């Protein structure tokens, strides 16, 4: 599947999911089971994506500068730093570790 096909299909799916919310009855979204499933899915997926972006490397697991960077991001989040600062600190940490040759 080409990148364009993936981009278009995924975009239309996400757009449709937003629009559906304006046509289903309000009572559907108020059901506790539905709300719970949505928040569980979001947490599980985001957590999984953190791990993939941090350690996945061509079909295996690799410990490199990304791990230290994510730990640095975690510290910034604990200090209640704004979103953009968290991201910049993580990038700067990885860049520095690689520039100095400490970690790949």
């Amino acid at each position: 599947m080409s990148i364009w096909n993936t981009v278009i299909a995924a975009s239309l799916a996400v757009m449709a999911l937003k629009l559906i919310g304006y046509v289903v009855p309000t009572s559907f979204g108020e059901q506790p089971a539905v709300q719970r499933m949505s928040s569980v899915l979001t947490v599980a997926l985001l957590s999984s994506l953190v791990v993939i972006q941090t350690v996945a490397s061509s079909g295996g697991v690799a410990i490199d500068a990304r791990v230290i960077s994510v730990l640095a991001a975690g510290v910034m989040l604990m200090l209640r730093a704004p979103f953009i600062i968290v991201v910049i600190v993580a990038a700067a940490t990885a860049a520095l570790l690689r520039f100095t040759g400490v970690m790949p």
Partner: protein
Amino acid sequence: MDITSRKTVSMGLSVAAAVSLYGISFGALSVASGLDVWQTQFLSIVMFSGGSQFAVIGLIASGAAGGSAITSAALLGVRNTLYAVTMAPTIGPGLWKRLLAGQLTIDESTAVSLSQSELQHKRLGFWVTGIGVFIGWNAMTFLGAVLGDAVGDVRAFGLDAAAAAAFLALLWPRLTAKDPIVIAVVAAVVTVIAIPAVPAGVPVLVAAAVGLVTGFMLNRGAK
């Protein structure tokens, strides 16, 4: 304009400014993942949901099949459906208004709107934040994509680590109770185990499934 309206506008615009800045990293990471500037911009205009957008480019970069990128983006987009259901009474009737509101229904517009107590401020908060983020996010995506194209090796600038940090920052505000923390830890462990065992793109789906089962069990245990 009354003082609460002014405060609402100011809140919406500051949220929009912060999120937009972060659009630069999305744009740069997207071209680094192998998408071109137009595919990147298409995601920001049509998909317009940060978590799902990062999932698509991350999975494409990891060499995952298109199907898992689409499924992951859609699963992350399910929460927007709930936001839309929540926002519908605030937005009110009217086909075109609802279509436009639908596209602008994201974490930020919903959060700013819900933080207001009166209907007029809820409406104002939704539209100011939604439109502000849409314009800023798309402008910064374009800037990031063009810069990323020019920069070349994004690893030297730590942009791969920035993507991981971005997901962590999206996850963080949700880890406010025991259940979400347990689910996050289980999903993380399952992902690490799955990465070497299954093709790229599948671990995230396995984690979603195990996360749902964990959530179900935690819920039953509580009753």
